[in-house]
C-alpha cells in the first residue's frame, strides 16, 4: 500500500530526470503508472466489500503520527476515480500537450498530484491526511499556473493557492484540536469517541475549522471563486483536478468525518445551508456563461454544492445518493471537460455562441459529449437518472423542510441540465459554419478517453447492479449508515418520477428557448463589484497597504532603531512581569559559589573590554573588544563545566569577528555621536536592560529546577544511544529531528543571505 502511494512521488522524480525522453513519443507510456495503480485498486474491490483493510507503517510513533492507511468503500471509490480518470488524463495529455516545452514538468506535477490525492483519501491519520492535503494544494498551484507566461494564469493560480492554503491553515487547527480532544490522531480511533466529541464544549470550533478547510477546497460559497479562475489550467488538468478529484477532497473530508462528527444539528444545518446556497448560486451562474470551461466550472461548483447538501441531509438515503452522485458526476463532468478540451484544441475557441454543428466533422466526440450531457441531465437509462432519483428521494424524506429542499434540488437540476446541454450538445447541434469545415477528428488519444467515461455512465445506468454492491454499498457503510435498498432503474410511478419528468421537461424547454449570448454574462458582470472575489481581492489589497505602512514604520532600514525597538519592547515586557509576579530573594551565602581568583580576573577583563567598547572611536576596536567579552564568557563556561557550549561559543565568536571585520570594510569611518541626549538615552535603555537580565538570572536560581529531563538524558545517553557526550547525543539522536529541521532552516537562511548579497552586487553593476 505504501508503495502504491509513494510510486507517484518516485515517478515524478524519474520523469524530471529522464525529461528529454518523455517529451517525445514515449509520453503516452506514462499512462502505465496510473493504469497499474488502477488495476491494483480494482483487485482490492472484493476484499473491501466485507470489511476495510488497514495498513500501518511506523513513522513518528512518539508523536502518535504513523503512516496508517485505510482502504474502505469511500477511499476505494476515490482511489479508483483518481487512478482511473488519471489514466485517461495521462493519455489525453500526451497528445493535448504534444511537443510542449515543459511536458516533462507537466507529468511530474501531474503524478505528484495523483500520489498526493491517493495519500489524502487513504490516510487514516489526520496529520498524514493534512500533509497530503497541503501537497494537493501545492501541486494544483503548479498545474493551474502551468502556462506561467500568461499573467492571468499566474494570478489565478496564486488565488487558488491563497484560498485553499488558507483553508488548509484552518484545517490544521481543526485537526490539532480534534486530535487533542480525541486523544489521538487516528481517524478510526476517533470513531469510538464520536459521542464524546459531539457533546464536547469545543465541538462548534472543531466544526468551524474543519468546514473552513473543506469549503475552501471544495469551492463552496463564498469561497467558490477560485475554481472558475483555475480554469486557466490546461484542460486535462481542469478535467482531472477541478472536476473529478481535488475539488472533491473537501467533500471527501466531510464524508470521512460524517461518522465521527455528523448527526449533530450544527453539522447538518451548516452543510445544508452552505450546500444549498452554493448549488443555486453557481447553477444560476453556469447558465450565464458563454465560455465552455466557465460553464463547466460553475456546474461543477453546483455539483459540489449538491454533495455537501446531501451530506447535510444526513439520512441513509442521502448518503447513498451522495455516493452515487460522486461517481455520476466524476464520469460525466470529466468527459465534458475532455470534450471541451478537444473543441478548444481543434477549433481554437471555447465560445458556445460560435461553436455549432461539429458532429459532422467529429462524430465520436459528439457522441461522447452527448452521452455525458444526457447523464448530467439525468435522462432515463443513464447513470445520472439513478443519481437524480436518489437525490429527490433523499430530499423528500429529509427529516425537516422536505419540500423546500426538494424544490431547491429540482431548480438546481434544471439549471445544471441546461448547462450540461450547453457544453455537451449545443456545439455539435445545428448547421456547421463555414469556418469549421476544415476541422477534423483528432488523434485517438483525445477522443477515446471522454468516450470511455461517457459510455461507462450509460453502462452503469442500464445495469446499475454493476456499480451497486461493489462500489456504492461499501461507501454507504463507510459513511456509517445502514445500506439502503439496491439501486434500480425503475421505481414505478411516484412523486420522484414526476419530479424527474418536471426537471427534464423544464430543462429541455429552457434549452430550446434560451440561446447562449454574451449579453447574459454582461448582465451578471455588472454585479461583480459585490462578488466575494472582489471583496477578497480588495481586502488583500488593503492588507498589503497596511503592511507596507507598518513595515515602513518599524522596518525602516535604520539598524539603530531596530535595536531600540527590540530592547525597549523586551524591557517593558519583562519589567511588567517582574513587578507583578516575582518575589526576589537573594542570599549571598547559599546562592553563590565561592568566588575564585579566576572569576575575578575574567570579570575584570570583561569590565575593561566593555569600557573600551563604549569609549572607543574606532569600529575595529569596538568589535575586537566585544569579542574579548565573548571569549571571556567562553572561559566562564569552561570554568563552570560546559565545555561543549564553550567550544561552540569560541568558534562562533571567532567567525562573528571575521564577519564583522569584513562588513566593516564596506562601511564609512566611525560615526561620531556628539549629541549628549542620544548618549544619555542609550545608556539608560541599555542600563535598564542589563539590570533586568541580571535580576532574571538571579531569579532563575531561586526557581526550583526540574531535574527530571536532564536526569533522563544523563542516564539514558549511553544505554539508549551509546554515547557519553550527553549534549551531542541529544543533538544527533534524542532530538535528531529538531537538528534536521534546524540545519534545513540554516540552509534557507544561507540562501537568503546569499541572494541578498548577490542582489546588491548586481544592482551596483547596473549603475
Amino acid at each position, binding site marked *: 500500500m505504501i508503495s502504491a502511494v509513494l510510486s507517484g512521488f518516485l515517478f515524478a522524480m524519474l520523469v524530471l530526470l529522464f525529461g528529454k525522453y518523455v517529451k517525445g513519443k514515449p509520453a503516452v507510456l506514462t499512462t502505465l503508472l496510473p493504469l497499474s495503480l488502477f488495476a491494483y485498486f480494482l483487485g482490492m474491490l472484493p476484499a473491501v466489500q466485507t470489511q476495510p483493510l488497514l495498513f500501518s507503517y511506523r513513522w513518528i510513533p512518539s508523536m502518535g503520527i504513523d503512516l496508517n492507511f485505510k482502504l474502505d468503500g469511500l477511499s476505494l471509490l476515490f482511489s479508483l476515480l483518481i487512478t482511473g480518470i488519471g489514466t485517461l488524463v495521462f493519455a489525453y495529455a500526451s497528445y493535448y500537450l504534444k511537443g510542449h516545452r515543459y511536458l516533462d514538468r507537466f507529468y511530474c506535477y501531474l503524478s505528484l498530484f495523483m500520489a498526493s490525492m491517493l495519500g489524502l483519501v487513504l490516510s487514516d491519520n489526520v496529520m498524514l491526511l493534512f500533509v497530503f492535503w497541503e501537497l494537493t494544494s501545492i501541486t494544483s498551484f503548479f498545474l493551474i499556473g502551468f502556462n506561467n507566461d500568461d499573467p492571468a494564469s499566474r494570478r489565478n493560480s496564486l488565488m487558488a493557492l491563497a484560498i485553499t492554503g488558507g483553508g488548509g491553515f484552518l484545517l490544521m487547527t481543526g485537526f490539532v484540536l480534534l486530535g487533542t480532544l480525541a486523544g489521538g490522531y487516528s481517524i478510526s480511533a476517533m470513531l469510538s469517541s464520536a459521542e464524546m466529541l459531539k457533546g464536547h464544549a469545543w465541538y462548534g470550533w472543531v466544526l468551524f475549522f474543519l468546514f473552513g478547510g473543506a469549503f475552501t477546497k471544495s469551492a463552496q460559497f463564498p469561497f467558490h471563486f477560485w475554481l472558475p479562475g483555475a480554469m486557466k489550467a490546461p484542460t486535462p488538468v481542469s478535467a482531472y483536478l477541478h472536476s473529478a478529484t481535488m475539488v472533491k477532497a473537501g467533500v471527501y473530508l466531510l464524508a470521512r468525518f460524517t461518522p465521527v462528527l455528523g448527526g449533530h444539528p450544527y453539522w447538518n444545518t451548516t452543510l445544508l445551508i452552505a450546500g444549498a446556497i452554493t448549488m443555486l448560486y453557481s447553477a444560476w451562474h453556469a447558465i450565464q456563461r458563454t465560455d465552455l470551461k466557465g460553464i463547466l466550472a460553475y456546474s461543477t461548483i453546483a455539483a459540489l454544492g449538491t454533495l455537501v447538501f446531501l451530506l447535510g441531509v444526513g439520512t441513509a438515503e442521502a448518503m447513498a445518493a451522495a455516493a452515487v452522485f460522486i461517481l455520476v458526476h466524476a464520469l460525466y463532468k470529466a468527459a465534458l471537460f475532455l470534450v471541451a478540451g478537444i473543441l478548444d484544441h481543434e477549433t481554437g475557441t471555447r465560445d458556445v455562441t460560435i461553436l455549432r454543428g461539429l458532429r459532422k466533422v467529429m462524430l465520436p466526440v459528439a457522441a461522447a459529449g452527448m452521452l455525458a450531457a444526457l447523464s448530467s441531465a439525468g435522462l432515463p437509462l443513464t447513470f445520472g437518472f439513478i443519481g437524480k432519483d436518489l437525490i429527490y428521494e433523499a430530499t423528500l424524506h429529509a427529516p425537516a423542510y422536505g419540500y423546500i429542499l426538494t424544490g431547491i434540488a429540482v431548480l438546481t437540476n434544471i439549471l445544471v441540465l441546461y448547462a450540461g446541454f450547453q457544453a455537451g450538445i449545443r456545439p455539435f447541434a445545428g448547421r456547421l459554419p463555414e469556418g469549421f469545415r476544415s476541422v477534423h477528428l483528432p488523434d485517438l488519444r483525445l477522443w477515446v478517453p471522454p468516450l470511455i467515461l461517457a459510455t461507462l455512465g450509460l453502462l452503469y445506468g442500464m445495469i446499475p447492479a454493476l456499480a451497486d454492491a461493489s462500489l456504492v454499498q461499501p461507501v454507504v457503510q463507510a459513511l456509517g449508515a445502514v445500506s439502503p435498498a439496491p439501486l434500480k432503474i425503475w421505481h414505478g410511478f411516484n412523486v420522484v418520477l414526476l419530479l424527474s419528468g418536471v426537471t427534464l421537461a423544464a430543462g429541455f424547454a429552457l434549452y430550446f428557448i434560451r440561446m447562449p449570448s454574451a449579453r447574459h454574462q454582461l448582465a451578471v458582470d455588472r454585479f461583480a463589484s459585490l462578488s466575494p472575489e472582489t471583496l477578497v481581492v480588495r481586502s488583500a489589497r488593503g492588507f498589503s497597504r497596511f503592511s507596507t505602512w507598518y513595515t515602513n514604520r518599524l522596518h525602516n532600514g535604520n539598524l539603530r532603531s531596530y535595536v531600540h525597538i527590540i530592547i525597549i519592547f523586551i524591557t517593558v515586557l519583562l519589567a511588567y512581569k517582574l513587578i507583578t509576579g516575582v518575589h526576589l530573594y537573594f542570599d549571598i551565602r547559599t546562592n553563590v559559589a565561592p568566588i575564585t581568583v579566576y572569576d575575578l580576573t575574567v570579570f575584570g577583563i570583561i569590565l575593561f573590554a566593555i569600557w573600551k567598547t563604549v569609549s572607543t572611536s574606532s569600529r575595529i576596536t569596538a568589535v575586537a573588544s566585544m569579542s574579548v567579552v565573548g571569549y571571556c564568557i567562553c572561559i566562564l563556561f569552561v570554568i563552570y563545566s560546559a565545555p561543549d557550549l564553550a567550544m561552540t561559543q569560541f568558534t562562533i565568536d571567532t567567525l562573528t569577528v571575521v564577519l564583522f571585520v*569584513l562588513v566593516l570594510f564596506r562601511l564609512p569611518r566611525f560615526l561620531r555621536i556628539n549629541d549628549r541626549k542620544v548618549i544619555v538615552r542609550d545608556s539608560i535603555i541599555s542600563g535598564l536592560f542589563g539590570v533586568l537580565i541580571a535580576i532574571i538570572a538571579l531569579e532563575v536560581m531561586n526557581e526550583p529546577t526540574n531535574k527530571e529531563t536532564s536526569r533522563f538524558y544523563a542516564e539514558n545517553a549511553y544505554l539508549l544511544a551509546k554515547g557519553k557526550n550527553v549534549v*551531542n547525543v541529544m543533538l*544527533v539522536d534524542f532530538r535528531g*529531528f529538531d537538528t534536521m529541521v534546524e540545519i534545513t532552516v540554516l540552509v534557507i537562511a544561507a540562501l537568503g543571505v546569499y541572494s541578498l548579497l548577490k542582489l546588491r552586487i548586481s544592482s551596483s553593476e547596473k549603475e
Partner: protein
Amino acid sequence: MKSVILRTASNYLLPLLLLFSVFILLRGHYNPGGGFVGGLIASIAFMLHAFANQLENTRKLLRYPPGALIPVGLAVSLLSGLAPVFAGQPFMTALWFSAPVPIIGLVGTPLFFDIGVYFVVIGITLTILFNISENIL
C-alpha cells in the same frame, strides 16, 4: 594580507586545522565536540587560508563552490535518518554496526547524521563569508 609569515603558516595550518575539525567531529559522541563545532572549525581554517592567500586561491583550492556542500550534507543527514525506515524501524531510529571501527569507535547512523551537519555548516558558513569578503580579500 601580504604577510609572508601568515601565508607560510596558513599552508601548514589548513591541513592541521581540518584534521582537528574531523577529530572534533568524530569524538563528539563521547567527548565534547560534534558536527556543528567541527564544521565551524573547518570553516575557520578555510577563512584563515583566504585571509593569508587571497580568496581566489582558496576558491581554487576548494575546486567546487562551498555551497555545493550544503545539499550533500543535507542528503547525508536525511539518508541517515531514512536508513532505519528501510530496516523496518521508525524514521531516525539509531542503527549501529555491532563491531567498533579502530580509532573512530562505534559507527552508526547518528555519526553519519553528524557528518551531514558538519558539511552543511561548512557549506553555509563559507558561502556567506566568501560572498561577503568578495572584492575585499
